[in-house]
């Protein structure tokens, strides 16, 4: 999985019928040091995530392993909302410290 911040959402009224009623989130990828990268992915939400949330998303066929995405054209799914993380013993991200 990769970590990213939800920076927006996508509205698409004309899309494959199997994607109707699926919330599409724009995720900006962050690295393990919490530095944002110039990389974005559109992912289907499976956990009720919203703007500003730091999330984990899964890609590829794994993304279809939810009741919301099973058998549907989806290659990225937000599967967790991140509270905090540490790397190399240092606390890198803490949800409650975010503005």
């Amino acid at each position, binding site marked *: 999985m990769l970590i990213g911040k939800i920076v927006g959402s996508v509205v698409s009224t004309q899309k494959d019928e199997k994607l109707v009623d699926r919330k599409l989130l724009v995720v900006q990828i962050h690295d393990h040091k919490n530095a944002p990268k110039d990389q974005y992915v559109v992912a289907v939400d499976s956990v009720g995530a919203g703007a500003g949330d730091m999330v984990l998303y899964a890609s590829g066929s794994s993304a279809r392993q939810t009741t919301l995405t099973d058998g549907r054209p989806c290659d990225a*799914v937000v599967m967790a909302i991140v509270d905090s993380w540490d790397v190399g013993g240092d606390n890198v991200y803490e949800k409650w410290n975010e503005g």
Partner: protein
Amino acid sequence: MYLARVTGRVVATTAYEGLSGVPLQWIQPLDEDGAAMGEQLVACTAIDSGPGDLVHFVDGREAALALEETFVPVDVTIIGYVEQAAVGGRDLAEGSA
């Protein structure tokens, strides 16, 4: 399947059903020289691994099959703890990469 070093932990109390209680850890994939290979990833772990450990992991849909609940959106899972990785007369498990 690849070699990696566990570098940290991720806490996510809100996760897809079936993933509660599954530990999430940062891993740095390693090459045959023990050098970093690509970006750090967040993995589920199917074993009792922790920061500093040398491990091996599986990616793709197989990553979900390593967990207790297999119908879950997971694409990286740690599946083994590496005690020794002998490459060219060197043990990659000794010391930090």
